[in-house]
């Protein structure tokens, strides 16, 4: 299962890289969102999968699954959500100000 999940996250990285290399700003943002999915999956796999039960102490099993990666991913999800939100609003504002949605056309001030 670990190998399978790793390959899945590799497929997501490939798709994200391809999107980030494209010309449209929204594709880039989409790519960054997909990239964060891939990273979260990788974090999960690195802790090992399905070694025990849910990390809640009420149950009394032999082993729990590793709780540290879960805490890390939780933090990462929130942060990447915040960043994605700011990206989206920036793209929206940029389009409002410049009328351009393709970042390759953004060339700074003319008099620079």
């Amino acid at each position, binding site marked *: *299962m670990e190998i399978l999940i*790793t390959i*899945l996250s*590799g*497929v*997501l990285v*490939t*798709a994200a*890289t*391809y*999107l*980030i*290399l*494209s010309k*449209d700003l*929204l594709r*880039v943002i*989409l790519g960054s*969102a*997909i990239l964060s*999915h891939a990273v*979260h999956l990788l974090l*999960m*796999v*690195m*802790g*090992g*999968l*399905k070694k025990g*039960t*849910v*990390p*809640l*102490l*009420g149950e009394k099993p032999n082993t*729990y*699954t*590793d*709780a*540290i990666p879960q*805490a890390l991913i*939780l*933090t990462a*999800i*929130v*942060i990447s*959500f*915040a960043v*994605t*939100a700011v990206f*989206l*609003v920036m*793209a*929206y504002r940029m*389009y409002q100000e410049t009328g351009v*949605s393709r970042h*390759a056309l953004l*060339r700074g*001030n003319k*008099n620079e």
Partner: protein
Amino acid sequence: MITMNLVIMIPFLAAVLIPILIKRKSPIHIGWPVFLVPAALFVILARYIPSIANGETYLNTMKWIPSFDIDFTTYFDGLSLIFGLLITGIGSLVILYSIYYLSSEESLQHFYIYLLLFMGSMLGVVFSDNLMVLYVFWELTSISSFLLIAFWFHRKRSRYGAQKAMLITVSGGLAMLTSFIMIYLMTGTMSIREIIAVVDIDHPLFIPALVLLLVGAFTKSAQFPFHIWLPDAMEAPTPVSAYLHSATMVKAGIYLVARFTPIFGGGELWFWLVTGVGIVTLFWGSFTAVRQTDLKALLAYSTISQLGLIMSLLGIGSISMHMGSSMEAVVFTQATFAGLFHLINHSTFKGALFMVVGIIDHEIGTRDIRRLGGLMSFMPVSFTIAMIGSFSMAGLPPFNGFLSKEMFFTAVLNISQLDFFALGTWGVLIPVIAWIASIFTFVYSMIIVFKTFLGTSRLETGDRKVHEAPVGMLISPGILAALVLAVFFFPNIVGDYLLRPAMAGIFPSLADKVELSQHISIWHGFNTEILMTIGVIAFGSLLYKYMRRWKGVFTLFPASWSFDALYNNMLLRLESGSSGFTRFYMTGVLRDYLLYIYLFFILAVGGSLFMTGAFSIDPIHQAPVRLYEWVIILVMMVAGIAVPFVKTRVTAILLNGVLGYGMAALFVTFRAPDLALTQIVVETVTTALFLLCFFFLPKWESGRAKAAPRMKTINLLISISVGAIFVMTALSVQSGKLFNTISGFFEKADELTGGKNIVNAILGDFRAFDTMLEVVVLFIAGIGVFTLTKLKLGKGGKNVEDQ
């Protein structure tokens, strides 16, 4: 007792005081109090002459950075004494001259501050015993001379000359610093005296240190092919040219070579580099000087040539170290003796010549030889001084240049007799080139006197009325000219009191065993040397007389082939090349930069994975995959692959949503309920946000926005490689478990924190700091979103940004 450390510091302290003096607006010219500084220092140094002549040396240390072996140590011996006397003596005369030369409208305080800075750093160079302190003062001379050359900074030529001198001498200074560091690595000490004792000539760093040190010395002393900065530095005021570019700074390289002869001398490389470069410089400088039409440029090339002469003599002198302490060796130390003697002579007559040229420039307004002539009857005193200086430079009796030129011929004739260091083959060239160079020296010396002062006046009527310079301006060149004569008639005073102790500094191993001094005789009988001098005069006169006929020779060296053109082209190429290179890769397109980053990732991570052979898969410890997990994974894979290829953006968002909810489903199977919850909520909000944004943004431009197929292929290749390397790295890491997880500790969450949810206990108790900052991130993002949507600058705001 006044130490040399204090002597070095006095000019710096005086430089600090000048602005205060200027503020008080005293009626006296600011140059007079400044004049007292070098004059006093000269007296102080002169009082050491008897004790130094008795073989005493003075060592003084002030702590600076003891932990790095860097102390402000001064060592005062015969060699430093000569230079110290030149710096302070000619410094006083130059300041005296400048008082009359510069009008009070110039910004005099800058002039004298720079000049005092230069004087102090030059004294620091010749008195320092510590390599690093020597380097500090060396660079200070470069900086202060840069400031002095560009004294009239509103002129373009001045700025060009200053920049050129700065670039060349500072590059040489950096080479010298490298050499100093190598010397420190070789010997473990920074003190020059101690290095002489412990240096190991078989050390692998010995040769690089030697070459780099000579690069430093050659750039500073304007040796071939680094001589090009000196003629352009002639844009400086004439007192500066007289002081820096004839008597002191250009001799710093000579000092360096003389000072390091006991360390590096004796080998073939040292001999050929110093003598060879010196001889070539001697010839090239004298040959090029003849074609100059500007008097100061002529003097600049003549300085280059004379410096080459001194340099070659130092190289010949180093041969004696190769021979040990035999009687034969002493013969070659006489070359160094002659070099030092000529050093003193050159400072006297070249200083006088520069000052005379300054007077001509000052009184007539031009230095162009083609416009000058017939000044003798108007300026008899200047003419006399110029004649004394030029004849001495040409090597005629009864002037001091005659004595040192004879000794130079003796040295080159001696060297051609030897048969080691490949001298048997090439040695005979040295006296021949030296002799030819002397002929050209004779020719340009005659040009200075006769083209300027004799013949008919070619001045136009509009020019200023010609008259003799004020007495004050004539004092300094007069004193120097008197010295030229005095040294000729009493050369042995100089020899016994100044040169003999200096020789002990250059040849410490020989000094105890044999007498290094030499009796300088004005008339030494009929021998080859005197015949050579007669030949120089005869051929020189012929060449001068028929100059018009052979001047065409110089057109064989077109301006576009000169070293100046090479230097200018190099600078231009360097600038255009680097800006072209920057423009080539800094395209301003985001995709290109991302491409560099991804390529670097592929090369660095993929390369190291490949090179170290770290890739491995561990298929044994795998958790089993159930059917519904297969379904989730496959769905996510298909969605992930499809996102880049879908035609409309709504499909792309929905596929991203599929990915997000797939993640949540996976978190459920991984036994991570908190993650699953968060993921569902966040994915929902994100998808909503995406949809909201798409409402405002234009549709994907499918028609003309299509990337070129080649670009698409590259993107695809890069993405696949990135993904593959990512997978390979991740698999390799997973297969190599080094030690167990520390999660066992957190399973005590209940007794430590009172919580039963381990993940929440980690977030809220064990590692709450992360959570706090994550909240801050959310908070900042919220403020950012709010500001971006609400704060809209109108046209006024745009103007602010444009400014």
